[in-house]
């Protein structure tokens, strides 16, 4: 390990401080009604908010890493994480908005009218939060390790304490996140260094996203002889299963549309999704370029890493690409700070969601219904800390890549929450028994590959942990339909609400 890199460390401290200041400025300017003031930002602004909410270490570091190791297979992530928005928009978003319940446990409770179902969905939400956070922590630890020259474990602990301090500080200062500002920082810190790298290596640098075809072709004809064939690192089944899983997983995490639900005008909300996908696309068009240009640099210096070494540095290949192309340290520092900001904001959002699911949906609604506001706050804060610590333990030694860990969270969402939302919205006959049976089946399917994948090879092949929803989601939907038909229909009041309010013109 090399020592502390001063320029990136200063940049990081400066950016975190600046985003706290901007957050406080947004609060004082817009007051408490920050979230409702969507109209003034316009559709493009809401789209930027959606995109900044979405961008995590998986987008920022993970996709390039997968692309570096697996080539065409990585497009399953790119396509899955953008195509999922189409599914969410055309099938569910407007209806969820009309329902007025935006978190999974709240929706489940309102639609299925069952504390048990609410509890199961809250547990699933917490599980998703944990897995998703592990991936972010891995990203934070790797980048901290690069900046501060520490080993992985110390970086993990250091990074975690910075996350918690940041969370507490922004909470006590009442800083609201200015998501447009954040999107601007993220996308610039991703694309500007990329342009410089492309220029250094002699490729079309104005739009490296459009110009890396030349680099691809150079790579294919280089002495390394990297194959560009589509199925070199995975079968067509694996590609499609992964892609489908990420799509339904995205649709099963409706909070990814956050601002969609709080913008006063539904029409603005719908159109803002177009901007949202475009802004997310900007990042996804660019991520593979990092991996390709890193490979080109490797070829120039004819240093070919061993598979183990390649695997170890895949998740920070965006940083390595900068180093190998000979970028100045401060410019590489910008990339690393972007990655940290993306991971931080995702972790903050996730921890708050997970803590909310426990303190409100489980503790308040189930265990202790007459808890005061203050007690609930204490439980929420304690849960945040417990979750944050739990994630550290889980992230201590993850053998998987960031994008793969994230994909497991999406598989879980796609196998459980997606069917519950989909049928809940599109079939009035779905009842609580169906929902509970479906979510439990989905949990079993998702975990089966993790638990049994080694001993039963067929499960490992058909239901890989990252991609189990191609078979899992339809199976769960089937279970939900069968169980619902065998048990009494849901109350008339709910069906009336669904037919007239949710699906009205």
């Amino acid at each position, binding site marked *: 390990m090399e020592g502390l890199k001063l320029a990136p460390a200063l940049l990081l401290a400066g950016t975190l401080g600046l985003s706290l200041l901007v957050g406080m400025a947004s609060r004082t300017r817009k007051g408490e009604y920050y979230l409702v003031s969507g109209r003034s930002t316009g559709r493009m602004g809401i789209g930027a908010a959606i995109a900044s909410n979405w961008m995590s270490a998986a987008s920022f570091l993970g996709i390039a890493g997968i692309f570096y190791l697996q080539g*065409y297979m990585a*497009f399953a992530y*790119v*396509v899955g994480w*953008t*195509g999922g*928005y*189409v*599914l969410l*928009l*055309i*099938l569910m978003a*407007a209806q969820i908005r009309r329902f007025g319940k935006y978190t999974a446990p709240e929706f489940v409770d309102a639609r299925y009218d069952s504390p048990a179902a609410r509890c199961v969905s809250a547990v699933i939400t917490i599980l998703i939060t944990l897995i998703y956070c592990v991936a972010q922590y891995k990203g934070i630890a790797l980048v901290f390790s690069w900046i501060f020259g520490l080993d992985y474990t110390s970086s993990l602990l250091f990074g975690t304490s910075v996350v918690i301090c940041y969370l507490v500080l922004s909470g006590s200062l009442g800083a609201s996140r200015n998501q447009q500002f954040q999107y601007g920082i993220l996308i610039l810190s991703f694309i500007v260094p990329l342009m410089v790298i492309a220029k250094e290596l002699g490729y079309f640098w104005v739009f490296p*996203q*459009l*110009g*890396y*075809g*030349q680099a*691809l*072709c150079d790579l*294919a004809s280089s002495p390394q002889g990297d*194959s*560009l*064939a*589509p*199925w*070199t690192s995975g079968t*067509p089944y694996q*590609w*499609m299963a992964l*892609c*489908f899983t990420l799509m339904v997983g995205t649709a099963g995490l409706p909070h990814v549309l956050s601002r969609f639900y709080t913008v006063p005008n539904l*029409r603005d909300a*719908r*159109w803002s*999704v*177009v901007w949202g*996908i*475009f802004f997310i*696309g900007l990042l*996804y*068009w660019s991520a*593979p370029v990092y991996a390709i240009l890193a490979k080109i640099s490797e070829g120039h210096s004819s240093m070919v890493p061993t598979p183990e070494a390649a695997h170890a540095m895949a998740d920070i290949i965006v940083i390595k690409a900068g180093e190998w192309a000979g970028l100045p340290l401060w410019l590489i520092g910008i990339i690393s700070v972007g990655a940290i900001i993306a991971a931080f904001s995702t972790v903050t959002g996730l921890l708050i969601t997970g803590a909310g699911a426990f303190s409100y949906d489980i503790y308040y609604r189930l265990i202790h219904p007459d808890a005061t506001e203050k007690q609930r706050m204490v439980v929420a804060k304690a849960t945040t800390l417990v979750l944050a610590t739990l994630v550290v333990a889980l992230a201590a030694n993850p053998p998987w890549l960031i994008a793969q860990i994230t994909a497991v969270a999406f598989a879980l969402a796609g196998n459980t929450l997606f069917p519950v939302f989909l049928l809940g*919205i*599109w*079939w*009035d*006959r779905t009842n609580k028994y169906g929902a509970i049976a479906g979510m439990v089946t989905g949990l079993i399917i998702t975990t089966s590959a993790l638990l049994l994948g080694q001993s039963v090879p067929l499960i490992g092949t058909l239901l890989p942990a990252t991609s189990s929803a191609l078979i899992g989601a339809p199976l769960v939907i089937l279970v939900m339909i069968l169980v619902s038909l065998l048990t009494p229909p849901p109350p*008339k009041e709910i*069906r*009336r609400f*669904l*037919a*007239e309010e949710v*699906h*009205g*013109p």
Partner: protein
Amino acid sequence: MASEQDPTSRKDDDYRVNFFRPREGFMRQKVRYTWILLISWAFFTFGFQFLLVMVQNTPAGDSLITKTVIFGFPLHYWFSGQFLIVWFILLCVLFNVFVDHLTKLYRKRK
């Protein structure tokens, strides 16, 4: 066209919501559009991968498609890495145009 039927003519206690048998009027129109979009979504995303498998000459997937170069890219890289995102954006635009049109139509009739 189904839109010419009166959307309020259904029985008051018919609360059917079923994607495969939508009620007449607004919902049936909307579901029809949703089907069109869903099919174009699946056809382009997964249909292209099936095509790659069908024409492949080697197990790794080398074929005429992967040898074709378009805008400087091998065709399959261009399609999955660049075009599909553009296509998704287009689908969302189409969806919004459809729904804007339907909402205008049915809000007026009420």
